[in-house]
């Protein structure tokens, strides 16, 4: 341990530079310089100019926000950063402003992710409601087909991006290091970098609205993506590249943290199930995302430099894109699923007051899903016209995933069995998740089977299936974690009644909307049709009416979060009587989490006590809070 001297007083200039303000300022300047330079050098190539603008924005944004300061100091300064400077980087004494700087504290990064995810969800949901509005009656009502396609594409990408990071970002950063008994992530600067890369990608993505949108939907299929109909496709590709780099950095950081930073006694066999879910998810991401980056680099090269990776006339192939994309695209479903499933298991133990049933069995199930999921991408090419030799193995492999998924369900049922059910909002969301996941999983079997997929492919049945999987299952898992850890992360309690209203509106609205779309799909309604044909009008109208409930649930959530943040009850250190390490530290969590690192001697699920009274929650753990929480200012 080293004595720390006084932190220097900061001036307004020091506060603003570097920060997000200087980042945006320099980013805009960089974008202008990049755009002007390339437009002068390369005439009549809007794609090249746009890519230069985006590159300038990202590069100069990171200079402005101070991302390179640490690198510069590491390599070219006379000395290493002092402990005071490290604390400064971690946001010590900077109050809420630390959320707007290149702050390295994992809790700050976790909160930045959480707010960003919620905002992305909000805008993604608005896109969904516009889609349902348009589809509520036959014919073009509000949007042209082109605008509709852009809305669908933006909704898809916003939701996919949000769901990929929704658990590993906020909870993986804020909760996971504390859960394993670490003071921070393994690479705090990379942690900040991963978040701010995500932040830098958002304006690029939104810029597509001003440069014509993109016609391909979220999959960005080439060769349609290669066609220079609008430069909006460049925004899509660049966003994906920046986002995938961000996710890769985050994955690398999380894996290293779990491998290296576990406290004494925290063996692999004692890791909370949530940690297992997150680490398996990010390992999967680390494996899957490189091919996605390369696919988007190729599309950009086709667009900017007139290469021909995907243009058949010049020897390219659309199948190449489909393989590269789905090699990421299918594992990505499990990148989303694994941590959400693990959240559900973590929450279930607390609110049934029981040890997790079949802890090792569940881990083997999650590992099984991880391994199998990188071998199934070919089932997305069943109807693409490619060689059929591998259809059988892909079909078999896809269906094999139901076995480890079944283990997860078995363990969840075992955990609930004869448990002391404490029906809080987190547990309601776990229940909803299990119901929706069963429907999403079983309908997936029909799409994994080649004969039925030939009929259902490209129809509304597919849309309903993956919404049941991604939203009904995984987003519900996220909300279980959100309501569970919100008091720890924010220091305030959410209103329990509003939380339950949110759940019921969401669940009923969700079931009504997407069961109707299953019906429409079975009737033969195709996806990607801006105008609903009359035979499917009733199912779509019912779906749109139920979507109103989902919309209402979003506003209940927003109201609950805002009012709880402003004037909610102050949360205790161990709000739910949890046994994992995050519940042993004070709320708000101090800068370095623990005064002395804990020593772990058993699994964190030794529940035998009844539902805890809130007042005695901290006494349960026997933990005394020796550190003062970080002061807000």
């Amino acid at each position, binding site marked *: 341990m080293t004595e720390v001297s006084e932190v220097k007083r900061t001036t307004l200039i020091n506060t603003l530079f570097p920060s997000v303000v200087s980042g945006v300022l320099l980013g805009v300047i960089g974008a202008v310089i990049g755009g002007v330079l390339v437009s002068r050098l390369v005439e009549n190539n809007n794609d090249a100019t746009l890519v230069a603008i985006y590159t300038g924005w990202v590069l100069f944004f990171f200079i402005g926000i101070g991302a390179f300061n640490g690198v510069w100091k590491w390599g070219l300064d006379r000395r290493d950063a002092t*402990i005071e400077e490290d604390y400064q980087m971690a946001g010590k004494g900077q109050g809420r402003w630390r959320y707007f700087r290149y702050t390295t504290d994992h809790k700050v990064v976790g909160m930045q992710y959480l707010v960003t995810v919620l905002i992305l969800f909000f805008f993604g949901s608005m896109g969904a409601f516009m889609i349902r509005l348009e589809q509520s009656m036959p014919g073009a009502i509000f949007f042209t087909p082109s605008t509709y396609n852009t809305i669908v594409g933006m909704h898809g990408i916003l939701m996919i991006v949000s769901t990929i990071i929704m658990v590993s970002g906020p909870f993986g950063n804020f909760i996971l290091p504390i859960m394993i008994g670490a003071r921070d992530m393994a690479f705090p600067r990379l942690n900040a970098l991963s978040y701010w890369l995500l932040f830098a990608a958002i304006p690029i993505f939104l810029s597509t609205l001003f440069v014509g949108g993109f016609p391909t939907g979220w999959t960005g299929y080439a060769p349609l993506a290669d066609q220079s109909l609008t430069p909006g496709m460049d925004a899509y590709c660049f966003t994906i590249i920046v986002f995938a780099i961000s996710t890769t950095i985050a994955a690398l950081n999380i894996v290293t943290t779990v491998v290296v930073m576990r406290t004494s006694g925290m063996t692999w066999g004692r890791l909370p199930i949530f940690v297992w879910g997150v680490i398996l998810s990010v390992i999967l991401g680390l494996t899957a995302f490189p091919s996605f980056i390369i696919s988007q680099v190729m599309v950009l090269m086709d667009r900017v430099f007139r290469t021909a990776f995907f243009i058949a006339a010049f020897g390219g192939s659309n199948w190449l894109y489909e393989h590269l994309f789905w090699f990421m695209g299918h594992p990505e479903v499990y990148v989303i699923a694994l941590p959400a499933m693990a959240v559900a298991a973590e929450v279930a133990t607390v609110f049934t007051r029981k040890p997790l049933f079949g802890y090792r069995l569940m881990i083997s199930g999650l590992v099984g899903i991880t391994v199998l999921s990188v071998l199934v991408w070919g089932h997305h090419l069943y109807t693409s016209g490619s060689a059929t030799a591998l259809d059988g193995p892909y079909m078999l492999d896809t269906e094999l995933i139901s076995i480890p998924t079944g283990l997860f369900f078995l363990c969840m049922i075992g955990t609930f069995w004869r448990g002391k059910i404490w029906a809080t909002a987190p547990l309601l969301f776990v229940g909803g998740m299990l119901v929706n996941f069963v429907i999403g999983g079983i309908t997936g079997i029909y799409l994994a089977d080649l004969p039925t997929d030939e009929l259902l492919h490209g129809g509304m049945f597919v849309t309903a299936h993956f919404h049941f999987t991604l939203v009904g299952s995984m987003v519900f898992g996220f909300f279980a974690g959100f309501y569970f850890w919100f008091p720890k992360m924010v220091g305030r309690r959410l209103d329990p009644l509003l939380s339950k209203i949110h759940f019921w509106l969401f669940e009923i609205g969700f079931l009504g909307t997407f069961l109707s779309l299953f019906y429409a799909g079975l009737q033969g309604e195709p996806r990607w049709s801006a105008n609903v044909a009359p035979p499917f009008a009733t199912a779509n109208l019912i779906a749109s009416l139920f979507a109103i409930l989902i919309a209402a649930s979003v506003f209940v959530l927003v109201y609950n979060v805002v009012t709880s943040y402003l004037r909610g009850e102050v949360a205790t250190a161990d709000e739910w009587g949890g046994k994992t390490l995050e519940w042993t530290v004070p709320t708000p969590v101090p800068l370095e989490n623990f005064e002395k690192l804990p020593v772990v001697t058993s699994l964190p699920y030794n529940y035998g006590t009844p539902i805890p009274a809130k007042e005695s929650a901290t006494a349960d753990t026997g933990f005394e809070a020796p550190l003062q929480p970080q002061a807000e200012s």
Partner: protein
Amino acid sequence: MSSTVHEESHELPLHIKIARARAGVLLLILSDALSVMAILAAGGYLNALNVLGQFKVPNEAVPNIIPGILVAILLVVSGAAYYLWERSIRRQAGTIQQPLFIVAWLATIVALVVQIYMSYTLGFGSPYHAYESVIILLTWFTSVHLLLSGIVGLLLFGRIARGRQTRHSYVVEVVGYWWYYTIIASLLLWIFSLILS
């Protein structure tokens, strides 16, 4: 503002710092190696499909082999020099042969310059066929890797020049991981381009 949180800091033990540096760089290499595999698979796939017989049309230009051989030699020199430098400071016997590191770094920089020169003198004409597209991607991908190694080398050179890297440490070791990986990956991509040609 006086000290705000608590008066003691907790530095990471050295063995943790070493383990995280190794793990971080190895994971980065793993991720990057998967990108390399994706490119190799893509090139091989397009070559095998040969859609409409247009993957590589007759009389299509192929990259000049001389600059490629030069880059390969420079990379081997760079790798060998880095290895000898690392070994000399690991042993800490006699003088540490810092010039070897400078040779390793300069060889990488020169290789980068030659690689960029190659990418501008491929002799392909737009719009490019699939073969040309793959070669362009391989060339640029290698350039980006060499650029990254050049930057890492510059930072390490800065530490040496400032007297902050006077003996062997895990920093030298893990930079070595990346150094050798870049060389192997670049040579692999070059050999692949020769096979496609």
